[in-house]
């Protein structure tokens, strides 16, 4: 289940005690050779006039081995209508080619395998035809084989520019990769400014190189943005295969070779970890050599893409923060991370997640979402969540998995109005309840998957859940609260600070009519209760006054069901030296 290589024994250092702070940290020129192209030109492509009348000289922008012929037909000018000459040269040139990038795979026993770099098609990326004045003459998108096509006037001095952007319509998406350490400048791959020549066809194949040479990234890492995009391409096409009508908002990817796993100013590369930020709809990707580079780690990229899909096509209230496969975390975090793991496996059609790191990217952290044996199974555990979701998707029966529904019913559930407007919070329960309702023939088999992960609650709210992971105050999943009723709930940081499974308790608050209501939370003097209120997946309000022993909010509320989230501030302040078991009496009254 786990792979780690190159670990050698060394000296043991004893621990010293300092203050405890848990840091939740928080993408030939001249056409002198006529040859069969690698692809057919698109039907009736527009004829492009470069408007360039300058002399055609070959200037290669490539710093490395371009195999382009340099037998430039200097002196040829591209006059406007041109069919040139008595030599019978073509008036229009079908300019086509393939765009590829270097893909560095993973060794079976860990680490990136630089000895087996392969050229992969850059699929679905934006390609521009640029003239000598740097004007964009035409734009297209590569096909599923990385091919592009233009029609251009003969003898036009043009170059091919490939944007690190994925673009699609129906379903629609736009994904860009830029450098967060360089003014968010977008990456582009560029060929040479050379003449389109006089033959009827010209082929220009562009390759983005890995930059790996002599045991390090000693050359420009041109492939990285396109490797990231290619992983995203697979994920987006998985979504499109399930729902061809989706419209996705723009997704930004920020990658830099300076992005390192220290936490600080993003503009300097201190992003802490590869991650998705819903705040700016951006996936930040690590790129620091010998520390952690993620551009070739499909699992990492697709995990973060999963967060974006959940955020934009469904809903997410995840707190984010620290988590690992066997931690017991807030049910929203567990679902979000488990979904991310499962989505990456579905998108790659590979159940193994791999994350390379370390010297020469020679080590790998990996796990298999088909490994159903965790240490902390339950509704609060991401391994349990990814296990259930992936088993619903896949056709591999790994023991007790007789379900093989594919991706469509999973996306349909998460994208449904029932799920998006659900008054409770995101967790495995509403997702599974809707999938079961929509796929009645598989209900029992899905229930078996849940039970194998010791998830026993049913319905949208996990009613009847008995798995408290040894901490009884975690159940029920939701308490019920209505006017005139009070309930006792407890917040603790036993499992972990801030986003632990026992930090926050949830109360379904039924409001009988539109009116003003008061929520009152009382505890002992060593407590500092705080609250958040949610309505149908939307954040409604929070009250986090630094007031010992109580928190009171009076607010006009609408008829219906709200979810009240209650916790002690000391259990959610990223400082595990403070807090502990804090119990409150929570009441609701009209007026």
């Amino acid at each position, binding site marked *: 289940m786990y792979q780690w290589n190159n670990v050698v024994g060394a000296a043991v250092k004893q621990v010293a005690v300092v203050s405890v702070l848990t840091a939740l940290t928080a993408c030939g020129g001249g056409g002198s050779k006529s040859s069969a192209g690698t692809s057919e030109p698109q039907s009736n492509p527009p004829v492009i006039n470069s408007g360039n009348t300058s002399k055609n000289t070959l200037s290669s922008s490539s710093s490395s081995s371009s195999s382009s012929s340099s037998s430039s037909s200097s002196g040829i000018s591209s006059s406007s209508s041109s069919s040139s000459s008595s030599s019978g040269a073509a008036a229009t040139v079908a300019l086509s080619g393939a765009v590829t990038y270097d893909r560095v795979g993973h060794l079976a026993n860990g680490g990136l395998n630089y000895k087996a770099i392969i050229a992969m098609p850059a699929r679905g990326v934006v390609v521009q035809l640029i003239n000598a004045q740097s004007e964009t003459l035409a734009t297209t998108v590569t096909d599923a084989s990385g091919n592009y096509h233009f029609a251009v006037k003969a003898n036009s001095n043009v170059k091919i520019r490939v944007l690190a952007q994925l673009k699609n319509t129906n379903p629609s998406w736009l994904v860009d990769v830029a450098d967060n350490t360089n003014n968010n400048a977008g990456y582009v791959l560029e060929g040479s400014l050379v003449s389109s020549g006089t033959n009827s066809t010209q082929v220009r194949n562009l390759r983005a190189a890995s930059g790996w040479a002599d045991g390090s990234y000693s050359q420009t890492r041109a492939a990285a943005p396109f490797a990231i995009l290619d992983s995203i391409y697979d994920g987006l096409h998985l979504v499109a295969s399930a729902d061809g009508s989706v419209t996705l908002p723009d997704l930004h990817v920020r990658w830099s070779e300076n992005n390192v796993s220290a936490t600080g100013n993003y503009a300097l590369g201190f992003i802490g970890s*590869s991650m998705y930020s819903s705040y700016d709809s951006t996936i930040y990707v690590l790129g620091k050599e010998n520390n952690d580079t993620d551009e070739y780690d499909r699992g990492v990229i697709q995990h973060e893409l999963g967060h974006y899909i959940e955020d934009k096509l469904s809903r997410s209230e995840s707190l984010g923060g620290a988590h690992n496969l066997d931690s017991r975390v807030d049910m929203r975090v567990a679902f979000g991370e488990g979904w991310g793991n499962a989505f990456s496996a579905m998108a790659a059609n590979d159940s193994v997640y791999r994350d390379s790191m370390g010297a020469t990217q020679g080590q790998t952290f990996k796990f298999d979402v088909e490994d159903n044996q965790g240490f902390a199974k339950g509704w609060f555990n991401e391994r349990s969540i990814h296990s259930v979701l992936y088993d619903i998707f896949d056709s591999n029966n790994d023991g007790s998995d007789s379900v093989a529904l594919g991706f469509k019913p999973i996306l349909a559930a998460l994208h449904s109005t029932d799920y998006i407007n659900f008054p409770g919070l995101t967790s495995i329960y509403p997702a599974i309840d809707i999938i079961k309702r929509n796929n009645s023939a598989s209900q029992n088999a899905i229930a078996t998957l849940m039970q194998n992960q010791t998830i026993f609650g049913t319905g949208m709210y996990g009613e009847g859940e008995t798995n408290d992971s040894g901490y009884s105050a975690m159940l029920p999943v939701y308490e019920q609260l209505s006017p005139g009723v009070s309930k006792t709930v407890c917040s603790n940081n036993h499992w972990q600070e801030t986003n632990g499974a026992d930090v926050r308790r949830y109360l379904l608050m039924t409001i009988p009519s539109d009116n003003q209501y008061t929520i009152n939370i009382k505890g002992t003097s060593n407590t500092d209760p705080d609250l958040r209120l949610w309505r149908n997946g939307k954040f409604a309000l929070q009250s986090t006054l630094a007031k010992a022993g109580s928190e009171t909010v009076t607010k006009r509320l609408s008829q219906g069901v709200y979810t009240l989230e209650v916790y002690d501030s000391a259990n959610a302040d990223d400082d595990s030296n403070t807090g502990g078991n804090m119990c409150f009496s929570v009441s609701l009254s009209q007026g």
Partner: protein
Amino acid sequence: MKFLTMMILAASHMPLLATAADDEFSFAKLTGQTLNTHEHMGVHGCEHKPGAQINVSGREFFNLQRGQLDDLSVDLTGIVGEKISVQVSADTKGLALQGPQQFELEVDANQLASFSVPVKALLDGRWVINLIVQSQTADGEISARAMALVVQVGNMVALSGGQQKATQNDAQGAPIIVLPAQEEIL
């Protein structure tokens, strides 16, 4: 937010070697988290990739003068009883490690594991010490993640990667970084 505040307070007590005019060299700027606090994120947090639940809880940013040898204290937080193996390496152009490069630790009752890294500053610039951590919890779960310490030697110079690309503007005036293609023209 408390984490960020303490980082900046800690930094304010450290000697700053840069001149006032050297605006970019500021620990507040280095550590100034731009998006990843709950306050900035509203009610949502940043969603990180899977990995070991280990964090640097002490300083991540250090300042040395060229030629200076110092022990950098590293404080990690983890799960009580968790066994941690840390491999340490550095940007060899700018820093030289002067001690062991692997540490075997156990997270104590205060959720801490600490060690120090003797390092000598060789060249001005901003350099990284890599901490590659493998952990095993008391439950038996094995996980890993990379972390980093950032060492500023002397005054600010270009980023240490050495491959930072100059930007151009496209026809619409947007900044772009031109990556050279290996091109085949047929």
